[in-house]
């Protein structure tokens, strides 16, 4: 490793001294390229080499913050939330339909049903629209229009949920009240607003999945005489299937966790909605609505709701991550 320049230095007494000094201060974990002969120049300042070690440790400390954070989040939410679940019983907590925290009845059945229904209905319209838009951007549109739409979707993702909620409250809720009847604050209003909010996730990830399908697949299919649309339907979409499923799962995570927009437009009654125009409440809404004044077991019950939500989201995300990693390894 110590080639021509270093040889010259090593022959002198001063060179030997320098090298020894350098080796003393250098961090043995550093890659060899640092110890190539020319590297000796910087060792004139011992402070610099010391700095190297300090910085490495500082950076490592910074990198550990996210791990510490996730451990703290898990521990604290569980400490606050699980005792009540244990007291009430998991089955009763999840499926009891009576939520009267002031009278000691903690059942989140109505909210669990609300979250599931709302997520399902909003994905029901947002997934086809989002995937169609993704195909449009990746395969159909002229590049300029595709890029332009990409920036639109980015902007859609950047608008805060409270603004969507406000828009829903001012436009969609009155619209439903006038044309479909009922109070307007309903499952339908929530599904419309939430669908808009998960669109960016679905569009972006599906588009990435479609654009990463190898070009050979497409040219091969076209060369066999298939039309462009046959190629999209029979070759590109099947090849991008796992990516599109990831998009849907992540969209689902977003829908389940969304709070402010939902709380503003769904009416928040703790009932199982009997029609699409009926008001309903989700788990997230319940937390943000009641956290401000809850105490004792009531507050603990809101944390228990948080535990259910947290477990659901983390399982969903880890599942996607591990599946993606496994997929990448498989493809590689």
């Amino acid at each position, binding site marked *: 490793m110590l080639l021509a320049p270093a040889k010259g230095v090593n022959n002198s007494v001063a060179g030997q001294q320098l090298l020894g000094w350098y080796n003393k201060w250098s961090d043995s974990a550093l890659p060899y390229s640092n110890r190539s002969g020319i590297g000796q120049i910087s060792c004139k300042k011992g402070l610099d080499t010391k700095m190297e070690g300090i910085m490495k440790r500082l950076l490592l400390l910074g990198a550990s913050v*996210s791990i510490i*954070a996730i451990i703290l989040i898990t521990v604290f*939410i569980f400490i606050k939330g699980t005792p009540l679940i244990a007291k009430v019983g998991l089955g009763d907590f999840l499926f009891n339909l009576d939520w009267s925290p002031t009278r000691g009845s903690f059942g989140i059945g109505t909210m669990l049903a609300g979250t599931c229904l709302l997520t399902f209905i909003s994905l029901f319209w947002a997934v086809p629209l989002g995937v169609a838009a993704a195909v449009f951007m990746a395969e159909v549109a002229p590049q300029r229009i595709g890029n332009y739409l990409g920036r639109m979707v980015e902007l859609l993702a950047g608008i805060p949920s409270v*603004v969507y909620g406000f828009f829903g409250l001012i436009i969609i809720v009155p619209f439903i009240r006038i044309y479909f009847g009922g109070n307007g604050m309903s499952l339908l209003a929530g599904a419309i607003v939430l669908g808009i909010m998960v669109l960016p996730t679905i569009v972006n990830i599906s588009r990435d999945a479609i654009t990463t399908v190898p070009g050979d697949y497409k040219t091969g299919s076209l060369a066999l005489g298939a039309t462009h649309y046959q190629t999209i339907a029979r070759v590109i979409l099947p090849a991008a299937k796992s990516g599109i499923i990831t998009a849907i799962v992540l969209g689902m995570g977003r829908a389940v966790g969304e*709070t402010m927009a939902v709380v*503003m437009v769904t009416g928040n009654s703790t009932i199982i909605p009997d029609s699409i125009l009926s008001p309903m409440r989700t788990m997230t809404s319940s937390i943000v609505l009641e956290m401000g004044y809850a105490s004792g077991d009531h507050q603990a019950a809101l944390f228990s709701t948080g535990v259910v939500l947290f477990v659901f989201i983390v399982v969903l995300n880890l599942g996607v991550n591990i599946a993606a990693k496994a997929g990448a390894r498989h493809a590689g």
Partner: protein
Amino acid sequence: MQVKWQERVWTGVFWLSAAFITLILASIIIYIVYRGIRVINLDFIFTAPSRAGKEGGISTAIIGTLYLTVVSLFIAVPIGTATAIYLEEYARKTSRFAYLINITNETLAGIPSIIFGLFGFVFFVVYLRMGWSIISGSMTLALMILPTITRTSQEAIKSVPYEYLENSLALGAGRWQTIRQVIIPSALPGIITGIILSIGRAVGETAAVILTAGSSLNMPMSISDPARSMSVHLYILATEGLSLERAFGTAFLVVVLILIINFAANTTLRRWSESGA
């Protein structure tokens, strides 16, 4: 012939779906700008709200937003960039530690804001006795924007050509010296884009802020005071039916801020990719 006909229908469907998404976005922005711009004047921006927000302006909410955003960036930017630098420049890509950090970051990014709110409440507000305050809110927000900053910084550092690193090391610079004087300057526009995007998230966040920073209408004097952000103000004005007019004004300011942030992020990114770094 039948194939031809089908293709035409599908082309229509694709164009319609794109047009529909554009329409949704445009109607939201145009409506809020149209209703909000009439409310905005200097008085609205510079006077404090009175009678729970029914009267007066939103100056305290603007200051609250500013405080929360700046403090959370102060916490999250150093940690996020440090993580990115460590992962890209020190850790072996295949190491279990790097894998663990990557997966925690992705999990952190997927956790809904209400969970961060609950955590911030029980940990910062109650356990660490910080109370409902700007510092509790900012620390919670910092955790929420950490994954964005880490990921964009990682991408920015990754895109710095490997020769830069090699040449600098060959010239005798140490690893940290190289990072400080070569890698970070080249990656800076990418890192800044990440910061700008996180400002957007911090400005718009509501659920976590309401649970950790409170919703006080008083002017915050220090970071240990409670505060109300514009998003929280909008939520309270709209759901409690206090003043629709002021709600539109607040929504207008939030939306315009987000538009500016988005535009700034795009411009930085474009200029950066054009300069060829």
